[in-house]
């Protein structure tokens, strides 16, 4: 099976800003890998270097043992779905899908056969004569997909392909794209800034931040064992307590929070650290249960989300945490204004070095060791 992609120490600098900073990534043939990150994190630039729209300053990009960087875009044999689909407005659906086949000199009969199969795969048989502007957003998306796979590329790139669609359609197309990629056995590199989409679709996710890959791993690993405060904050909701690590506790504001020694062994004494707790791992109990209940706080909002309840709790030092639990569990009797205690299992507190980045308004943290 072909479609093994390998990026080695790839860098790109624009105007002295390192858009992509020595990125390495190995993708196995047939794998679905998502590049996830906020805008400006370097994921799109990385994609453009794979397609050849942007030349890397250094590093190698290798597809099935072949160095790509020296090849022009049109010789790389990569399928790509663009964010705005980039369908040719003056060609109908059939002509659009025929375009890559004609460029490869494939004869008419074979073109017909392949176009028919590609359209069947995306469920658009019978739309051959339509012009792109006569199609809905979802249909255009499918045409773009058909056009990208019709020449059977080993590698399929997708640049935020579902960004312009509404939520329902997006969910359905997510499933379709996953199924299609499995059917074809094609390797997919998928770019998005939507962490839910990344968690739902990928075999592995590469989290981009400031031109570097912060962590690569399967969705569950990113969620359960984030490698950095940034990853913890970007993938899934989280509550963060920052402070100074001191023996078995983290001093954070008025509190001393206990940490798992085994997990923090590698962190030095008196270093800045953050405890990350996912909302569904927080325990919220009425304050009357006893002093052992944990951090004292008052429920400010209780939001009914169907299967779950979400609570916003203001702790005694003024900061807020989110908690989530099954609606209908014993705690669901808690209401707005109630005094509660918040706690968690030590094992559920993920301890990470450093602090979350401040918002731009607050400026950069000093980061002194």
């Amino acid at each position, binding site marked *: 099976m072909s479609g093994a992609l390998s990026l080695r120490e790839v860098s790109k600098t624009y105007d002295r800003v390192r858009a992509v900073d020595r990125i390495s990534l190995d993708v196995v043939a047939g794998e679905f890998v998502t590049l996830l990150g906020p805008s400006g994190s370097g994921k799109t630039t990385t994609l453009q270097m794979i*397609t*050849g*729209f942007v030349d890397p300053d250094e590093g190698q990009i290798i597809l099935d043992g072949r160095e790509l960087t020296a090849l*022009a*875009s*049109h*010789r*790389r*044999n*990569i*399928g*790509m779905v*663009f*964010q*705005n689909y*980039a369908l*040719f*407005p*003056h060609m109908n659906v059939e002509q659009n899908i025929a*375009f*890559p086949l004609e*460029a*490869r000199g494939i004869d008419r009969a074979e073109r017909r056969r392949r176009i028919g199969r590609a359209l069947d795969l995306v469920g658009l048989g019978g739309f051959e004569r339509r012009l792109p502007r006569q199609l809905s957003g979802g249909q255009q998306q499918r045409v773009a997909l058909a*056009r*990208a796979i019709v*020449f059977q590329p080993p590698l399929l790139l997708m640049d935020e392909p579902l960004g312009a669609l509404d939520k329902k359609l997006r969910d359905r197309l997510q499933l379709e794209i996953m199924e299609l990629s499995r059917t074809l056995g094609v390797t997919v590199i998928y770019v998005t800034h939507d962490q839910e989409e990344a968690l739902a679709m990928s075999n592995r996710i590469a989290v981009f931040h400031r031109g570097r890959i912060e962590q690569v791993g399967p969705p569950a690993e990113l969620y359960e064992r984030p490698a950095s405060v940034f990853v913890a904050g970007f993938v899934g909701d989280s509550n963060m307590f920052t402070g100074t690590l001191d023996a078995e506790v983290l001093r954070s504001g008025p509190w001393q929070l206990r940490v798992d020694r085994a997990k923090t062994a590698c962190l030095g004494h008196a270093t800045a650290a953050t405890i990350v707790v996912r909302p569904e791992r927080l325990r919220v109990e009425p304050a009357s249960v006893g002093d052992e209940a944990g951090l004292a706080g008052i429920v400010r909002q209780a939001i009914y989300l169907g299967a779950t309840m979400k609570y916003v709790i203001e702790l005694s030092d003024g900061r807020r945490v989110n908690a989530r639990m099954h609606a209908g569990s014993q705690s669901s009797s808690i209401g707005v204004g109630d005094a509660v205690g918040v706690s968690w299992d030590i094992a559920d507190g993920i301890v990470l070095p450093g602090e979350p980045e401040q918002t731009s308004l607050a400026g950069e943290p000093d980061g002194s060791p």
Partner: protein
Amino acid sequence: MASAAVSTRQRARSGADLWALLAIPGILILGAFFLLPLVLMALRSVTDPSPANYLVLTSSSIYVRVLVNTFVVAGCCTVICLLLGYPYAYAMHRAGPKLAAVLTIAIVLPFWSSALVRSYAWLVLLRENGVINGWLLSAHLIATPFRILRTNTAVIIGMCHILLPFMVFPIYAAMRRIDPTLLPAAAVLGANPFRAMRKVFVPLSLPGVYAGSLIVFIVALGFFVVPALLGGPRSMMFSELIVTTVYELLEFGQGAAMAIVLVASALMALAVASRFVRLGDALNYGSR
């Protein structure tokens, strides 16, 4: 959609489309000082003294010859402006912001500056003891001064200089409307740069080409200043003939008839071409 809904509601409320009334002063001015004179002239062409005015065109071969020459010159200008203008528009489109600004200014200035001034400049440059001949002679590139003043060549040079913006603006506008991701898309789908241009970019820029060619041709048909200053008797254009008829021969009825013939030629060109062209695009210069 939304604005249509608003004006419908307004109409329902006030009984009349108030916005539409605002155009009245403009319509009156254009009606009185543009449309009415043309209508009166059309009337005059058949009443002063009679429709026989139109027969003047058959009275001497000069009229037909000048009319044919006018079409030939306009056609040459259209082709030359297209050949010069398409690559120029493409360069404007692909250039970085600073170069694009320079190229735009270089094309906007001629559009707005006086045809008279530029014809005069070409007169100074092209005449036998003019600037260009002076250079070529002193560089020993030619032995005797060339003579192109008073020929169609000089007229076409001067006209293309003035008409080029009419070609470049619509083509450039059409190029700007092309989604910039289409060329990368064509490349990644396997099309080499030449194929991507031929199959994607050029077809999508064609509306601009049609519009530009039409405008250049129609405007060229009516040129007067350039052929009058740079041309000679053999390169005369129809507008010159009309001015002579009215201003020197004082044959007002005949002049009116000839003016109507010129407008009719332009309208015919317009009618033939309007199937391909969005005229509104072609005329939207000022805002660019």
